[in-house]
């Protein structure tokens, strides 16, 4: 059994790599442009990696990292630009083609079958056979060898669903190597890992590099860039800002490259101090089972409180906990002085909390229902008599808010799936306003909405706040956080690490807190107000 074909890059390839001229690129993406309806996702991006290096790819959310990698993997096709792999121009029309060419992408959601064993997953579609039957013994043995070569101790016959997230990631990496991948892209591999597991993963990445595997490492955590990467490429708004050796930049430089942009968008004036009155929401030391711990803050009437933080920092989890979609295990929440640790969204809605979710299409709207039915959905219980909906009242309700939200051009019987993104978001807003909410939680209020409509939504949010509603706004778009917030809470790794006043916010200050750069001096800062 010892003469089985070795699935890892051979020794020869590794040693050859040492002599190869350092300037030779294994992969070049030249002048890549990709537009989606209304958005220029990538604008003339050039991206190169050398054989056997770890190249970090960083940028804010929406900078274009994922789009670029999807083009590399064949999941998307570029509108223009060239892809050159090992000196030859290629064109992938399907992920399978990229895979065959030695490119593997490990996504945040794993591509594994939880009810099959590690070995079965790694060899899915390529099961070794002996005669008509699958050669189980060989499959297990090769898997064991593969894992051992990675320095990973997982039994090949364990069900993947029983493994921890970190172990599943290791299985994904093993699978990539078994496919003979010599370029591995990891998309936010550490987002769901504990500090300890992160160290393990970084070790593993170093070992891959020693083997001559090229790793493209997408991350939000700048500290990891400096721990693991040889070079780093920064993307911003669909353009390459810089590609440089990690030794030549500081973390502050990177933050600056990631955020350094001009404001090109008008935000409504912020609340005056006298408009911000009673406390609506008071949160004290709440924790949840999954991520959140020791979170305390307040939201007042008339105020927009921004919540900033990187993906995975716990922003959305916080919103879900406040809305009763997830249970807070410790601490207290009060709404207008009354206990408000809700056990279900239904309870939260009845008590006057509205949640405008990040994913309008999946969680915010019933796409196949009319505008009117969508608006009336959460407030229905209050508007019925012996179980029947009062149609006239429903109509007038919708008409009222349509006027406020400038939705007059829209027929209230139209199915919302046919509306523009901006109008859809207005329907969501109308829906929650109709519940007479006291607190509105916005998760990415303007994601995927074009610039013109954005200003409209911002205007509306401010107007809603001025009517005495407390607003908690989660956003990854720093200009939005800065332009809209009367106060900003910055989250990092499941808790609020910093509270910044609305007056002199800077992107750099927020990013420093959000990347944990000044976490040392701020873990509880600003919470006790």
């Amino acid at each position, binding site marked *: 059994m010892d003469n089985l074909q070795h699935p890892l890059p051979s020794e020869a390839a590794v040693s050859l790599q040492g002599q190869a001229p350092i300037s030779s690129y294994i992969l070049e993406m030249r002048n890549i442009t990709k537009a989606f309806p209304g958005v220029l996702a990538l604008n003339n991006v050039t991206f190169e990696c050398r054989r056997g290096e770890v190249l970090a790819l960083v940028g804010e959310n929406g900078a274009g990292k994922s789009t670029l990698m999807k083009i590399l993997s064949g999941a998307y096709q570029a509108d223009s630009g060239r892809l050159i792999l090992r000196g030859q121009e290629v064109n992938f029309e399907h992920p399978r083609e990229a895979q065959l060419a030695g490119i593997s992408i490990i996504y945040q959601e794993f591509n594994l079958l939880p009810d*099959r064993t590690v070995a079965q997953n790694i060899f899915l579609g*390529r099961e070794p056979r002996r005669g008509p039957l699958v050669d189980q013994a060989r499959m297990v043995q090769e898997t064991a060898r593969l894992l051992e070569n990675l320095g990973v101790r997982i039994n090949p016959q364990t069900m993947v669903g029983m493994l921890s997230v970190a*172990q599943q990631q290791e299985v994904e990496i093993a699978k990539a190597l078994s496919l003979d991948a010599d370029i591995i892209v990891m998309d936010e591999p550490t987002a769901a890992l504990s500090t300890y597991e992160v160290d393990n993963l970084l070790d593993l990445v170093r070992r891959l590099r020693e083997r001559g595997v090229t790793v493209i490492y997408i991350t939000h955590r700048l500290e990891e860039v400096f721990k693991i990467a040889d070079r780093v490429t920064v993307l911003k708004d669909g353009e390459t800002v810089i590609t440089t050796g990690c030794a030549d930049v500081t973390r502050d430089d990177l933050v600056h490259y990631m955020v350094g942009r001009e404001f090109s968008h008008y935000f409504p004036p912020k609340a005056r101090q006298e408009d911000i009155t009673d406390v609506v929401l008071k949160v004290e030391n709440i924790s949840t089972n999954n991520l959140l711990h020791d979170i305390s803050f307040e939201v007042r009437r008339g105020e927009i409180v921004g919540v900033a933080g990187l993906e995975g920092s716990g922003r959305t989890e916080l919103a879900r906990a406040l809305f009763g979609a997830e249970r807070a295990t410790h601490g207290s929440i009060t709404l207008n002085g009354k206990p408000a640790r809700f056990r279900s969204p239904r309870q939260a809605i009845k008590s006057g909390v509205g949640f405008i979710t990040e994913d309008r299409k999946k969680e915010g709207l019933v796409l196949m229902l009319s505008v009117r039915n969508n608006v009336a959905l959460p407030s229905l219980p209050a508007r019925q008599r012996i179980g029947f909906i009062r149609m006239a009242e429903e109509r007038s309700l919708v008409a009222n808010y349509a006027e406020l939200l400038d939705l007059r051009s829209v027929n209230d019987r139209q199915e919302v799936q046919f509306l523009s993104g901006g109008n859809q978001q207005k329907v969501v807003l109308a829906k929650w306003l109709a519940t007479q909410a006291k607190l509105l939680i916005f998760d990415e209020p303007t994601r995927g909405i074009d610039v013109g409509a954005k200003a409209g939504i911002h205007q509306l949010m401010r107007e809603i706040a001025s009517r005495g509603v407390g607003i908690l706004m989660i956003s990854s778009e720093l200009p939005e956080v800065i332009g809209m917030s009367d106060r900003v809470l910055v989250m990092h790794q499941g808790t609020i690490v910093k509270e910044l006043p609305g007056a002199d916010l800077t992107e750099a200050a927020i990013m420093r807190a959000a990347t944990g750069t000044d976490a040392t001096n701020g873990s509880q800062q600003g919470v006790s107000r």
Partner: protein
Amino acid sequence: MSATTTNARQGGKLSAGNLIGRIPTLGVYGVLILMFILASIFVPGFTKPQNLTNVLQHSVVLGLVAIGQTFVILAASLDLSVGVMISLIGVATSLLISGRVSMILPAVIVALLLGILLGLINGLIITKLRVNSFIATLGMMLVLEGALFSRFDNFAGRVPRQFEFLGYKTVGPVPVGVLLMLAVAALAWLILRFTKFGHHVYGIGGNAEVSRLSGVRTDRIMIGAHILAGLGAAISALFLVSRLRTAAPWIGKGLELDSIAAVVVGGAPLSGGRGSVWGTIGGVLILSILNNVFNLLAVDAFLQDVMRGAIVILVVAFYSARLRK
């Protein structure tokens, strides 16, 4: 590295949870044994050898069709037409033979080919026309049922004594039918466990897209699974005809739902990707014991349905709860 070992949660070790993970049928047989013990204690006459043989004999028809159903459910599909396939194939076999010994072999071959053909059509409708499997096989069921009842309204044809060995002969105390079922189950197990096709059935049921991107020919696998469901129905029909000595257009009625129930009670979720043939056999035995117990206790037929339905729901709820932990 050593770091990984210390953190390996259930990684390589053979913890209890891992064991249950590896032997998914454990729960099914737990329920089965519990049921057996309860029946032995509380139901007079249950443990008589003759009665136990009856239970086994009774489980053959359902067992054979449920084994076929297992393949499609593992692939996250299902087949609602197997019941009427059994009626149709049964009538066809009975008529073809019409008491002639010389026609037995040709009739058996035709029966099996019919099963394969109907399964193939189901598979093609689902994969090539992209019709949801529930609708595709429901449509197939209605078509076959209408066609069958338009021509036949009562028993049709009969089979000679030589064909009865399948339904009545025993080897020692064990009926031939039971051996047939076990042989078919063993073959199915072999296919699922040891062939590429079997692995891919689990693959497309677990996640069709992941499988497709791993190079699995998902359409072919789906069609293959449906062919096996048709084949299972055909074998079941042959046994049933032997047992009844003839066939009628209603003999397979209800078996489509019973077979789905057996597979699900056997631990395979309708969402596919998880389960096993031995689980299905366990599920079949559970349903057969239930049936037998109801008959021994002379429970009213309608009440039987009520209780059977309730028990199926309870068992599956129990698996669900266990899985969530």
